[in-house]
């Protein structure tokens, strides 16, 4: 059972959209060690482009990014395409209205910075399992 799970996990493709290089690379490092295939995007525009060109299983996005912010990315994805791709929002802005707005637009989960990488891995696993 564990082995088959691992095989499925290895096949999953996660897109991480984050403008802070340190955070982006840290998340990528952590998730790569868990066996996921990771694609990086430095801003909202790049994120949408990657989503268009690839079959992504999970999107992890920051809210405040250059060109197109996280909320706009979520709204576009939910309105036009990739309706079923789970979205995890990772943001330093933890005010109630901001979190609620992200959920209203179609986010599936929300993590507030500072965040734990262990917790992130658990949530990623859970979201991918829900999609499956």
């Amino acid at each position, binding site marked *: 059972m564990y082995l088959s799970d691992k095989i499925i996990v290895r096949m999953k493709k996660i897109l991480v959209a984050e403008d*802070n*290089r*340190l*955070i982006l*690379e*840290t998340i990528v*490092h*952590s998730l790569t*060690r868990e066996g996921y295939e990771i694609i990086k995007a430095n801003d909202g525009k790049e994120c949408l482009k990657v989503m268009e060109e690839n079959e992504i299983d999970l999107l992890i996005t920051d809210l405040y990014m250059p060109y197109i912010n996280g909320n706009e990315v979520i709204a576009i994805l939910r309105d036009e395409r990739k309706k079923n791709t789970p979205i995890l929002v990772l943001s*330093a802005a*933890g005010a109630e209205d901001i979190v609620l707005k992200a959920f209203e637009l179609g986010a599936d989960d929300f993590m507030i*910075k*500072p*965040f*734990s*990488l*262990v*917790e992130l891995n658990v949530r990623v696993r859970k979201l991918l399992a829900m999609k499956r």
Partner: protein
Amino acid sequence: MRSINLKFNKLIKYHLLFVCLIVFLLPKVSSGTNYADNQTDTSITNNNLPSVISDTLDTSLKERKIILKDSSVLVPGEPVTSIQEHPQEKVNSPHNNVNKIVLWLMGDKNVAEYKIRLIDYGNDHLPLFLRKYFMRFVEKTYTYPIIILFLLLISGLILNVTIVLLVMYFTSKTKNHRERYVRIYRNHYEDVLRSFLFGDIDWDLARLKLKRLKVPLNRKILTDVLLVFKENLRGEMDSQIPQIFLKLGLEKDSIKLSKSIFYFRRIEGLKALTNLDPENAKVIISNYLNDSHITVRTEAQVAYVRLHPENPFEFLKTLKKPFTRWTQLSSFYIFRLHQIPVPSFTDYLDSEIPTIRNFGLRMIIFFQQLENAPAIFKLLDSPFEMTRYLSIQAINDLRLYDGKQLIKNIYQGETEKNKIEIIKALKNIGDEADFEFLESIILSDSISLKTEACRSLYYINNLGRERLNVLNQNSDLEIDQFLAHVTNSRN
């Protein structure tokens, strides 16, 4: 960039050639012609002839005569005979060596006056050994052809522009170089620390890879990287990052920064210590809680809230400066972000500083601390409008029925803003006993007070609505219009 550099080199080269030409050639040429010109020109100007004429009278006496006879260019009534009859006598006039264009531009009286002033200034202000050079300079200034002065001026201008451009070029180059350096080392340090934090390499190897840590800039870059890690990550890494900071001795830099004379460096040091070396920070920030610079003070106060979860606002008791609104908001944000246990804010209501009392009231309202009612009532007598306003708001929001009579008592002496707040409070804590009070307000002149009183009376209970109907029928106050306004859901 290279092409710009070459262009600059060319510009400097040509400019130097140009200056050399002016310095070595032109004065020699001009000194040969000056004397003859001056002899004739000054004699003409002494007779108050227009300078346009004087410029044309260089060649011969014959030409001069022809022109002088032309009455259209002469000033009527002016004597013109002197130049024809006694030309040699005028050579020793005060302006005999003065450049003709200077005379044309300034007028002969001004020229003489300025020259005398300059000489006087030199005599009065300059030391003896400099005076003769100064006099020589003044003489030269008055005798050199003005074209040379202009050329020197232009040369100076070009030199200035060149220097400015060179400074800009080298500043930009240095800045770009520094940015590139910072980016390269930041990325390098991030990678090394990430590998260490994820257990890919041990500390010895990580320490070896963290190069050039003796350079202050590199130590600053590493501190910044550690700060970003600390601000964004929780869990196991959260405890490892301050250890790295201490192992590398970076806290010494931050302590040094926190003692800097520049406020922004002090803030930088305080921020690093608060996040990465809390024990040292606790001692240091206590010195800055009453700092004269508002930004340093804010940083220290916010840091205090974060580092003292057991009693985050204790510093307010010793605060001597105002507790600014921005600091209140920042402290509150940190307080909520780090989920610090909520203390009782009653103690701060006795503070001598109004901003602290107001903050205490705001916190009491926000956290619904009902046990503080007696302290809130006391503040209704405060001389500060905002304090009384917040007290009334607290009575309203916390539904402190015991305070109803107190706010009604102070109504008459209150400002319009506070009166409205009292009427609003009666909407929530009022009853039939307050109808008469509200009716008296409806009969007053102020529209805003009337509107608010109608609203309160309408929402207290059904009896209040009936009273409004009766009042509407028995008076010409057009209360139905106020009611239409207050019952409209948009208002």
